[in-house]
């Protein structure tokens, strides 16, 4: 039984992104072997034309559908974040820590409903501050959107990069 196949089976059946330690506990293999197996698996999956990839999010790994196939696959999976909430989520991530009152200026009254949904999903944290509420992203945010980040600063930087790509690609007014 080759070690990367054991790790492959574990990644496939894990209910959420897992760390090397999680994989260790489940397999009994040592950390070095697991890191090696992860490396080989990522080469194998991500380098092929398969619809599935192995993503790294800071210290966590997950098997997931590649972006270009996610629309079709999403229909059979249970996605939880409504499309119109995604944009609000990305704006919060970009401007965080940001006051809800400021987000109101950007997206209007729907911010209250969106923040409630995002907090319920555990993607955003809301803390009272002055007369408003301060919003920041959570660890689950990183996992749900598959961002390779360890901190809020990383998430912010990642979004800045995406914004730069967007403005290069399709600047609109």
């Amino acid at each position, binding site marked *: 039984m080759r070690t990367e196949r054991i790790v492959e089976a574990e990644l496939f059946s894990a209910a959420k992104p897992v760390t090397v330690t999680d994989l260790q506990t489940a397999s009994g293999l040592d950390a070095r072997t697991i890191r090696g197996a992860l490396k080989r698996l990522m080469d194998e999956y991500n380098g092929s034309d398969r619809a599935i990839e192995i993503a790294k999010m800071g210290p966590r790994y997950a098997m997931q*559908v590649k972006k270009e196939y996610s629309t079709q696959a999403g229909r059979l999976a249970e996605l939880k974040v409504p499309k119109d909430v*995604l*944009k609000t989520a990305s704006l919060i991530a970009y401007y965080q820590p940001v006051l809800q009152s400021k987000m109101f200026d950007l997206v209007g009254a729907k911010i209250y409903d969106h923040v409630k949904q995002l907090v*319920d999903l555990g993607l955003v944290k809301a803390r009272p501050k002055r007369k408003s509420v301060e919003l920041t992203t959570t660890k689950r945010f990183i996992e749900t959107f598959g961002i390779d980040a360890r901190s809020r600063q990383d998430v912010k930087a990642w979004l800045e990069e995406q914004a730069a790509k967007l403005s290069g690609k399709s600047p609109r007014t």
Partner: protein
Amino acid sequence: MSFTSECTNVLGHLMFHKSIIEDDAAPDRESKIEGYLHMVDEMQKGTLVDSDDPFERSVAVVFELVVNNKMNPWDINLIEFSKMYLARVRKAGDLNLIIAGKLVYMAWEILKLQTEQVLQRVDRPEHVDIMFDGWDPDHLDLFVDPFELGAGEVILRTNDAPIDEKVRRKSERPVTLIDLLDAFEEAKKESDIRKELAKFMEKYRRPEFEDKSHKESLEEDIAEVWERIQTCGQGSVPITDLYNGGKEDRVKVFVSILYLARMGKLHIWQEKMPFGEVFLEVKVPWDIAQLEDATAATAMKVEEVPVVK
């Protein structure tokens, strides 16, 4: 690394925490950390004497484990840690230490959380907020646009969000016997606490709650409000988030959180007197609140709660 340098690491960690004590921290916080520093210092010198106080002894065990197992004081694997702790205490055959250990476990978790919060605070750009400190921002809208959109404007204008929810499998596994036993153990403890709570209510009910239906509904109200609080997630929750109907519901929520605060389950505070929003926060970290530690803590608290007049 040697025993001495491991001790130095822990001392460095404690010094950091001492240096970030804020003005609004609990008054005994500084002396508490002083005590810890003293303890580790003694440990390093080999002059630490066993205390009679179970809590102090269990704190010493914590430091001993961290030092001897070369754990990184900035990143303790709590699961590993609590396993080692329990093994160590069982070996000593000291039941008092098990209870004390739970408190230490919670305290440690809180300490760790606080560090994270402090680091976030240090990293946070404050200039916008500082500019308006002490001002009423409502009156500034006329002549100031405080929000620099920057490159985020692209995100605002585009139709597609730059993030997308990754499609993963929803994996499930069958329940095993061990799962069932674990669940049973937890459930048994929780229901025992509910029974104790009911007894407590019976004993200290207010005279005007003599009427049976009134008393029953109070217990149910508290249980229901506690459940509502649990759906609100971690961190501080404005009481208005718990309202779920008209005036009567507001009274129910308000009275229930007062009871829960007295039972030691919640912190409650108000930012602006006298009509500002009331906030509440569950006293122990959320995940632990769901587990046995919270139940143990509540069980102890029930005994300590003063008579409700």
